């Protein structure tokens, strides 16, 4: 039964209550005066999820832009917590009509933001703002493109990598120039890298955080679609493609690594995985390139970076781009929107991307950035910096490597985490956990599709 009149009545009730509350607000007039004054230049607010060093790197870009645009545009960057928290904030802000002008959303939140209809496609603004989107890497642009239109600027794109401790490799008699290429090889190497003292493990062969993103990457490497309808690119996805032999094998492998004491499961906090690796407690790590620079600097040993392992020998699919993109919010005054677009265009410029890339580990999404001296020098110092870009060279060449475009992807990633976790803990078999997760997701997807009226 659809009651279309009721919400209006509730709204009316809300208005009366609002009026009452406004009277109360009089008491707060003095406080309200504390609110920041209106600036002369166009103020642009950016909400983002870049913490720590990467946050500093982003602030540096913002400062540079503000200096160049002094008196005309002033961007304020606001850290809203990790991607999930920031997305929650964004949803809440729609209610309060206090949306920022520009917002960073991670790749799996793209479909949701698209369905919320709160943004202007960046493709419509880029040219006017001075950015030729043809300069952006095609494969990565494809992820954020719907019906031929680029939705947002892929600002920070990362690739998954295999990090390994070259010093430990030598100690264990492994060839530091021949890192493992498949999961089976990872297991063999990890077994040799483990160091035990009595019943204590002083060095694990491998570490990973429980992160569904890593699983999505294995799908890419195995050339499998994560959800149906051509990864949600040909139409609304209605199911995830989890309960298949390939995925079961990966999850089983993952669980066995941890349960057998060969690997260390670092929980769900990415930083804990990094810490275990850089402190030398674990000799290999599968992780995003996003923090590569920081990790190499922090480690006291020689860090090797290799392509993300394939689930099985012979699988030669592509990894996908991780990271996030930047969206321009619609419904703002034209001058403000233009200023916002200008800022986003700047973030996609060769100069900004070269600087951003070398200070973080994200790949330069602007093809022209790699020719700049800043980037060339960084690669000359650390050859590893060229690797993530290489890994993503062929992204989006197949439906599998375009990544699943689905509104409930944030939930799917979490549910995948639950499945992996329960297998690591030996509470469940891979088959049962994945079947279970797939079924729960079917209900969530149906609810979502109903909520967007389809």
């Amino acid at each position: 039964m659809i009651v279309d009149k009721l919400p209006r009545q509730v709204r009316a009730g809300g208005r009366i209550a609002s009026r009452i509350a406004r009277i109360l607000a009089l008491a707060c007039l003095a406080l309200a005066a504390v609110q920041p004054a209106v600036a002369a230049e166009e103020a642009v607010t950016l909400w983002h999820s870049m913490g720590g060093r990467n946050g500093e790197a982003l602030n540096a870009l913002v400062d540079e832009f503000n200096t160049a645009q002094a008196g005309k545009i002033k961007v304020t960057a606001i850290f809203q917590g990790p991607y999930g928290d920031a997305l929650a904030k964004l949803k809440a802000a729609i209610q309060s009509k206090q949306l920022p002008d520009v917002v960073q959303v991670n790749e799996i939140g793209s479909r949701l933001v698209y369905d919320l209809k709160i943004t202007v496609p960046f493709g419509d603004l880029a040219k006017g703002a001075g950015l030729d989107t043809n300069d952006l890497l095609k494969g990565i642009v494809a992820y954020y493109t719907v019906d031929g239109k680029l939705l947002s600027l892929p600002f920070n794109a990362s690739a998954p990598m295999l990090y390994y401790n070259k010093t430990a490799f030598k100690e264990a008699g492994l060839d530091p120039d021949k890192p493992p290429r498949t999961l089976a090889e990872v297991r063999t190497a990890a077994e040799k890298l483990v160091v035990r003292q009595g019943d204590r493990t002083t060095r694990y062969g491998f570490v990973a955080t429980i992160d569904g993103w890593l699983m999505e990457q294995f799908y890419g490497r195995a050339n499998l679609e994560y959800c149906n309808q051509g990864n949600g690119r040909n139409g609304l996805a209605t199911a995830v493609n989890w309960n298949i032999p390939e995925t079961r094998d990966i999850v089983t492998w993952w669980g066995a690594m941890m349960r057998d004491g060969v690997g260390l499961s670092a929980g769900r906090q990415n930083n804990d995985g990094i810490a275990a690796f850089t402190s030398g407690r674990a000799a290999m790590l599968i992780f995003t390139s996003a923090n590569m620079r920081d990790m190499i600097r922090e480690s006291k040993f020689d860090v090797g970076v290799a392509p993300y392992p394939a689930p099985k020998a012979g699988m030669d699919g592509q990894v996908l781009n991780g990271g996030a993109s930047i969206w321009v919010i619609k419904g703002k005054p034209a001058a403000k929107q233009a200023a916002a677009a200008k800022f986003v265009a700047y973030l996609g410029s060769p100069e900004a991307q070269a600087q951003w890339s070398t200070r973080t580990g994200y790949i330069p999404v602007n093809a022209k950035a790699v020719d700049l001296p800043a980037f060339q020098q960084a690669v000359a110092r650390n050859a590893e910096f060229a690797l993530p870009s290489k890994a993503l060279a062929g992204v989006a060449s197949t439906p599998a490597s375009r990544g699943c475009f689905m509104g409930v992807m944030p939930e799917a990633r979490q549910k995948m985490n639950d499945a992996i976790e329960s297998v690591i803990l030996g509470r469940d078999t891979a088959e049962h956990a994945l079947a279970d997760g797939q079924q729960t997701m079917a209900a969530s997807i149906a609810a979502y599709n109903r909520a967007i009226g389809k």
Partner: protein
Amino acid sequence: MTPAPAEGGTRMAGEAPRVAPAGPARASAHARVAPRRRGSARDRATALLFLAPSLLVFATFVFYPLARSIYLSFFANDLLGAPVAFVGFEQYLRIVTDPRFAQVMTTTAWFVVLTVIPSIAIGLGLALLVRPKIAGIGLFRTLLATPFAFSAAAAAVVFDVFYRPGIGLFNGLLSYIGVPPVDWLTSPTAALPSLALAVVWRHAGYTMLVCLAGLESIPDALYEASRIDGASRLAQFRYISLPLLTPTLFFLAVISTIHALQTFGEIKILTHGGPAGTTTTLVYSLYETAFGLGSSDYGLASAQGVLLMLIVLVITVVQFRVLGRRVFYA
């Protein structure tokens, strides 16, 4: 989120023990306004004027949201949380039938047990420890109550760093004594107790203060008399301190339970409800449903809010019933 002055509006539980002794006073309050008529027009206007500020706030921020909460709980909503389809009791049915909610309720119950019992036991123990009026005891009282000066968020943040698997202080300390590391927040069995520990550390500072105040209100003469009778310390505790402290402990149990049911900040900071949902309590589940993961399932979240309210209501009523008897007995 302090215990007694909890974030919520449920803190009157703490005042209940006062209600009873105030009983006679209440009678006199009515007697005081004589003769017994419903006041002059002027009085009535004054009363309305005096009550108006509170009434306005309650009407706007309690009663109206309450009605809207119940209303929302009967609807399905769109992506933004706006109610679009009346679904009757379907949201409640989802709560009752979904095994995930069974886990949420179990977790909530365990969280209550793991925070309430230890904080009261430790608080009482600490209070007994600093009860003797020996030189310098004031300093120790202050020191032992210090954790309470931490805000819930500050305490949670500190413990968050201690618990880290990679850089964890706690695992470091364990390694000094040769104990293998514990997956404090990452193992489903350890996460809830670890979370409770962070809560208890801070909360025990408060329970200690309350217990100490309770102990101090017991007349020394009682102990003197028992000492003359040759009672041991244990006997004194068993037959004097504990019975006379019962109302205080009961008060603490109620207030701590309600506080535990409302705990949010520590969970948000330490575990985000994980791993595998093992620290997702009712309040955290409400938050996740309404605001987490980009979902805005206000209908389901409102139903959970109504459920939370009913639970707190039941506890409050039980508390009134029990205290009604207890306090006079004491």
